[in-house]
């Protein structure tokens, strides 16, 4: 694999973001339907069937691809919406579905064998053995690797696995094994795995007490910001807590992933695709980030050093990090 052939997979929460991503140089846009079948089930976001049909036409006319994320875990009482999402993806001609649930993978493999199946990061397959299971049982073509691996683990998995690998290079950073976290559910009663939202806005409250802004999720204080401190959204694992007598960002600092400098290493490792997180982001953000990542991939392809174009203003908490890829993160 060279950087020239690496695929840049970009998020879209709206038709406008899809067009912006394609125009800014996305090879592929990934998106979800407007319901609990995907892990960014936010109000006002995502695609109807008609939106998807038009989005596919826009992307395909320009030689780009569209993937559909159906990456939550179907309700036991009614898995209809998940199955119909897979059926409609096949009927509309999406280029791949991104799935996490074993039962749904089995359904897709049995009913739509010709539809490419990618393993979602929500399956948190972190070892070649896990990928082997999904390849053998469900014939997946690609796996999106968890954001908890080091670069050397990404290399080892890519070398050993019988499938393409895709890694995150930019956007939100999840410190837990994805798809296996009930923290938000514990505090709010809404499961990210089944409802598709982590730390939902409906359960967030900001209170001003004296000069302090208190950010709460459900009944719990997730962070406090003194006057002058820039406040952040109370995503549970990015909160400040007290443990062992110290008040710290115990799980993860309020930072975003920016792994642009690692793109040549990913290319050399044989990683097939690079992914940008952020289907919840607006069109302007998508355009700028996709453009910057396009430049970074093109620079790597021609052996030039990565651009130092600052994207930090767009990042959560204003800071970029190479996250778990960096040695010592653990």
């Amino acid at each position, binding site marked *: 694999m060279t950087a020239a052939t690496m695929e840049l997979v970009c998020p879209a929460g709206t038709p406008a973001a899809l067009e912006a991503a394609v125009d800014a140089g996305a090879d592929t846009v990934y998106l979800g339907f407007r319901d609990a079948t995907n892990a960014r089930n936010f109000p006002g976001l995502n695609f109807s069937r008609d939106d998807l049909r038009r989005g596919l036409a826009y992307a395909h006319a320009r030689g780009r691809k569209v993937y559909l994320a159906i990456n939550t*875990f*179907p*309700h*036991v*009482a009614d*898995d209809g919406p998940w199955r119909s999402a897979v059926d409609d993806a096949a009927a509309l001609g999406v280029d791949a579905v991104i799935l*996490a*649930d*074993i*039962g*749904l993978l*089995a*359904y897709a493999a049995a009913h739509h064998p010709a539809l490419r199946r990618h393993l979602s990061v929500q*399956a948190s*397959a*972190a*070892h070649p*053995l*896990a990928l*082997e*299971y*999904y390849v*053998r*049982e469900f014939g997946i073509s690609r796996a999106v690797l968890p954001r*908890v*691996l080091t670069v050397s*683990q990404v290399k080892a998995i890519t070398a050993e696995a019988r499938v393409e690998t895709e890694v995150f290079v930019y956007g939100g950073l999840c*410190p*837990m*094994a994805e*798809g*296996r*976290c*009930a*923290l938000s*559910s*514990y*505090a709010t*009663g809404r*499961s990210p*795995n089944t409802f598709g939202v982590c730390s939902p806005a409906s359960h967030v409250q900001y209170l001003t007490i004296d000069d302090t802004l208190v950010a709460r999720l*459900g*009944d*719990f*204080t997730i962070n*406090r910001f003194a006057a002058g401190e820039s406040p952040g959204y109370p995503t549970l*694992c990015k909160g*400040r*807590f*007290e*443990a*062992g007598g*110290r*008040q*710290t960002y*115990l*799980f993860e600092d309020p930072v975003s992933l920016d792994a642009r400098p690692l793109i040549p290493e990913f290319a050399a490792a044989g990683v097939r695709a690079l992914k940008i997180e952020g289907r919840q982001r607006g069109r302007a953000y998508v355009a700028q980030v996709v453009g910057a990542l396009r430049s970074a991939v093109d620079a790597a392809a021609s052996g030039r050093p990565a651009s130092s174009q600052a994207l930090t203003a767009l990042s959560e908490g204003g800071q970029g990090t190479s996250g778990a890829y960096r040695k*010592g*993160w*653990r």
Partner: protein
Amino acid sequence: MKPVLTLGPHLYHWPADEWRDFYFRIADEAPVESVCIGEIICPKRAPFTLPHHEAVIARLRAAGKEVVLSTPALIVDDRDVALLQGALAMEGFLVEANDVAALALLSGQPHAVGPYVNTYNRATAVRLAAGGAVRVTVPVELPAESVSLLAGLPAPDIEVQVFGRWPLAVSARCYHSRAYGRSKDACLYACGEDPDGLPVDTLDGEHFLAVNGVQTLSSSYGCLLRELGRLRQSGVRRFRLSPQRTDMVELAKLYRGVLDDRLPAEEAWMSVERLVGPIPLSNGFFHGREGVRLV
């Protein structure tokens, strides 16, 4: 069919002799039918308890208990795989998968699936059963309705955690060493300092979570004692107690008493409250609410 009480794997890093004595006492005194052993949180801890496995297994089996070998909750590197392979190499045991990676090796032979694998619906449970899963412990956040529908399947047998901190998340990052300002590679076994987990409080000083190495659990102890009747009615016949630093033998007796209809659930509940002291109990997940709640 008689309800089965299972003791889930011991999750914390205790001195090895305390770990051994804990299981000896379970073998001798606890009215549980099935006991899971195995280090599922951190492979660095395993060398301490492994030398005691043989004696613990022998004692448990001599007491007529089934021994299940639990395997890592997150399989990332070869040390995790080595623990898995160690369990597979032992003949005559049911092995419990807690990461899909384990299924790559276990499929095709009878095995158990633990609560760390996402079994949210019937299609998944049926698929796991087809691959040899004879029992599945469901994820802790599943509400009653889901548990009941899964329990209605002819296979696999459904097991439900009914006591102990809810395991909420697992990571490649060790929060225990991070909290102690150490790196994961030079952790000096920070997790050994907190035999029931490291309390994680909000900035208001409210107890919220507990950290156990790479694992994050609820601060509250989950307790579905009052729900045992409903669970049994829905067809669940396996009930899991997750070890905490409380009198697990006494606790098992209380659950056993309720399951055998010898002890009213309310009476047992009050005894559990006395046993666990100041630690709050929760059952919200089962009732479709915030997991932290007591409904």
